[in-house]
């Protein structure tokens, strides 16, 4: 009785090993089972983080303050650590609020807070656009600084996400998490932007 040669057989085996096969199920089927078993927690998706109006308001204010602070430092506004020799601006960790709206704010109702939130988000977006379009052409930013900042923010995001696993509804951790996410997004834009356009 004849046999296929060992060499040819090994070729077939190697081809079988490398053959790409489609998954046996689609994700919806798997997800339905996982949901049935309680393995998927709806509260663990990102949606829960911004699920409550007071949380949204806190996040918006933090993002507003953080965004403006980042913008001020990155467009080269005067700072105490500016080098006179190299004209190099070192971004500082200034936390000075640039908008009085962040201070002494009280809300009488959820609706009022929600309206403030919408205004804050709108203000934040306009401020970011303004800063981006008015970047000082003379500011000498450094890609390495932004990269280092992005890496540091990544670590903070990781740390806060880990903390959220233990305390998913803790408002302080959530605020840090959201603020860091906003700052990271802004920094990533700076890193991605061509040299000369990194004002914000």
């Amino acid at each position, binding site marked *: 009785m004849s046999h296929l040669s060992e060499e*040819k057989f090994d*070729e077939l*085996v190697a081809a079988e090993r490398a053959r790409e*096969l489609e998954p046996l199920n689609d*994700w919806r089927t798997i997800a339905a089972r996982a949901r049935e078993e309680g393995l998927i*927690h*709806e509260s663990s998706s990102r949606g829960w983080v911004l699920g409550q109006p007071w949380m949204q308001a806190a996040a918006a204010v933090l993002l507003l303050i953080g965004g403006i602070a980042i913008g001020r430092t990155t467009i080269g506004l005067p700072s105490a650590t500016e080098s006179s020799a190299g004209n190099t601006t070192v971004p500082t960790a200034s936390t000075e609020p640039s908008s009085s709206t962040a201070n002494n704010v009280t809300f009488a109702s959820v609706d009022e807070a929600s309206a403030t939130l919408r205004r804050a988000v709108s203000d934040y977006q306009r401020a970011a656009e303004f800063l981006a379009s008015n970047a000082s052409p003379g500011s000498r930013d450094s890609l390495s600084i932004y990269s280092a900042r992005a890496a540091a923010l990544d670590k903070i995001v990781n740390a806060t*996400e880990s903390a959220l696993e233990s305390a998913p509804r803790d408002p302080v951790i959530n605020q840090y998490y959201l603020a860091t996410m906003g700052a990271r997004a802004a920094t990533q834009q700076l890193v991605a932007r061509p040299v000369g356009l990194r004002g914000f």
Partner: protein
Amino acid sequence: MPIDQLDLKRAMAGDERAMQRLWSQHASHIDAVVRRLCDDPELAADISQEVWMQIFRALPSYRGDSQFGTWAHRIAVNRTLNALRKIRRIAKLEVDIEDDSGVTENDSDRTFLAESIEQAMTRLSPGARAVFVLHDIEGYTHGEIGEELGITPGGSKSQLFKARAKLRKLLANLRDESTTVAGKGKQHVAPV
């Protein structure tokens, strides 16, 4: 592809999107071993669901000592073999292996000509098929196969030798083609 640690953390917490990303990255590889160990696609699909449920259930126990794909692959093999045992496709694998029933030739085998490895494997018993798939396709050592199947490494080696011989016979119709490419790309790819 390295697994995003954040995805793992999120998946452990029950984040659907993170779980979906893990599944997307590994489903083809994990499901492939399930499909090869079973010769019934519908059964394989059912077992695959169980495998993925087990992977997600066991996520909190994943310590990162091995690659996620390797860890999940082990779960897939264990779960599939257990499922096959439960439905008596592998009633007693040890007996199946020892009596060589999976590789002896019957009348229908004498006339059966396979066009592919996948087709030829349908003529192996579940036990012999498992040894062949785990060793030649998935790269397990005979020691690892012995642990999975409850047989000795020598038994695994013997079974593999016979399974390969049977498969080569079932694929003999491809012999002419093989003579035209003989000597090209000669490489024994299976682990020893």
